[in-house]
């Protein structure tokens, strides 16, 4: 026989026999299939889901109130009663880290959305219209980027005081230029595509062109950047809180917990170790997921 039958073919035949009906292969479904095949991306996704669950059910998971001070058990090493140990006020670091998930994820989401709707939108506009509009917007973004992020945050805090809105504003301003640049690139790539020209040829109007053709085709790349930005925001937020220009105590934010423990780095390393690990795991998970999304949406970029 000329055509060979191999074990691999049998395996697939069996798999196809199990499938009830052929699934309609939409581009979105193809992307999901690619994502599903990527184990590291799935790990990232799983960790992110766990973190979200932790954030939602924080009051149920945390054994203590995050700001309850207990002067009888100050600076205790990790034990059964206090999994991550306690800080200088006797607060349970485990509970603080759990509640911290809530704050960190939520604020990171706010920051990213804010950056997306400011910088991202400007980028889309710059990319679509091009020419002078593009030049003006992108030069302003360049100026923004030239101001050090920490300095801008300090100014904002100096004028408006500590707080979540101020923090969000600082991170938003700092990340606008990158967001704008990314989205501009995404739109430019789509704008040059042949199918845009072919739609122009049948008379599709400007507005419809953006809504029906450009956004749907650019959205994949935008989601990739969006997820990547969540990780960046968490890092920015924590570092700002750490140096004292972010949130104010006693908010259980990971950066702040780190800040609390920094004076005792040598004799009580657990006070910094655990919040640092939370930050690391979260960013790592978002990055894994982002890379998986990149491969899924854009197999050619690999």
């Amino acid at each position: 026989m000329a055509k060979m039958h191999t074990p691999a073919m049998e395996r697939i035949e069996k798999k196809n026999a199990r499938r009830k009906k052929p699934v309609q292969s939409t581009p979105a479904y193809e992307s999901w299939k690619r994502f599903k095949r990527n184990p590291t991306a799935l790990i990232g996704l799983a960790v992110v889901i766990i973190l979200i669950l932790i954030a939602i059910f924080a009051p149920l998971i945390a054994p203590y109130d995050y700001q309850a001070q207990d002067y009888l058990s100050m600076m205790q090493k990790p034990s059964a009663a206090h999994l991550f140990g306690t800080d200088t006020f006797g607060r349970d670091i485990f509970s603080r880290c759990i509640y911290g998930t809530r704050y960190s994820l939520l604020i990171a989401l706010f920051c990213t959305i804010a950056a997306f709707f400011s910088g991202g939108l400007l980028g889309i506009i710059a990319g679509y219209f091009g020419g002078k509009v593009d030049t003006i917007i992108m030069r302003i973004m360049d100026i923004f980027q030239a101001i050090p992020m920490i300095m801008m945050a300090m100014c904002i805090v100096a004028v408006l005081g500590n707080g979540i809105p101020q923090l969000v504003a600082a991170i938003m301003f700092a990340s606008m230029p990158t967001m704008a640049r990314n989205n501009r690139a995404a739109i430019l790539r789509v704008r040059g595509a042949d199918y845009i020209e072919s739609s122009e040829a049948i008379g599709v109007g400007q507005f419809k062109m953006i809504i029906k053709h450009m956004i749907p085709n650019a959205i994949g790349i935008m989601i990739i950047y969006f997820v990547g930005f969540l990780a960046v925001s968490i890092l920015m937020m924590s570092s700002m809180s750490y140096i004292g220009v972010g949130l104010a105590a006693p908010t259980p934010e990971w950066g702040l917990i780190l800040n609390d423990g920094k004076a005792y780095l040598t004799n009580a390393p657990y006070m910094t170790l655990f919040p640092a690990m939370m930050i690391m795991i979260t960013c790592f998970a978002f990055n894994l997921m982002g890379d998986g999304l990149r491969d899924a949406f854009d197999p050619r970029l690999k």
Partner: protein
Amino acid sequence: MSENILEVKDLVIHYETDEEVVEAVNDITFTLKKGQVMGLVGETGAGKTTTALGIMGLLPSKVGHVIQGSIKLEGEDLLRKSPREMRDVRGKRISMIFQDPMTALNPVKTVGDQIAEVVLLHNRCSKAEALKRAQEMLAMVGIVPERYKDYPHQFSGGMKQRIVIAIALACEPDLLIADEPTTALDVTIQAQILDMMRKLQKDHGTSMILITHDLGVVAEMCETVAVMYAGQLVEFGSLEEVFDNPKHPYTRALYQSIPSLDKDVERLHVIPGMVSDPSNLPPYCSFFERCDEKCDRCRDFEPWAVEVDPGHVVRCLQYTPEWNGGEK
């Protein structure tokens, strides 16, 4: 020693992924004599490039699998060689020219360095000697040798393809595989490149496999022709045999479907349907659905290769005794 430079026998190559198995090459057998030029013709997905990659030992790792068969280069089975040994074979004894000259060159190295690199890799010589050789090669493909210091972007498309050819020929390989070397080029440039390739092939006596979908290019360049369809060699023979006396229904239909410059036809002959999907081939003749000359018996058998004339092999049931058992 045999006069055959390459003997491919019963070669089967599959691409295996989690989703599907692509039967890219299904049992092909052919031989190439020393100094001969063979045309490998077929449409997209017919398995031409896979065959070439199989010979080069460059199948994508993990996905591409040689299921069975042998590829003998001057009697040595390439499939039994270690990856390390294959690296010595590639470039030195077999070279390949890829379709797109734009992506085949490294944009950040001078063309002289890129030619010299191959020379250094396979020969014991100094850098200076290698660069001298690079300049000779450039002159050979019709580029001023002084331009060896230039970067790829400073050359036009046709020039880049000349450089790619220079790299492929730098170590004087015994066998050259050219995968659609002129498809990306304009006709007048194609004419230049084909002229040059023919001259170089004659001068050096290099054996060559020319992969193309253009029957005109085959007629100009080749001595033997292999027609591929759905991973099988449906027809193999000398240029004159295959062009003047095509036996396989696919080959015949292919000739009729191209517009001719000498004849006027009102409507073109159409091969119905689509190119067969190599991940879903029937257990009988792959061309069955599109064939004009099929009979009921075709569904019962997988056709096998029949030598209709000396050296002219066709894989179609109508040249076997089984055909008479059926009705036409």
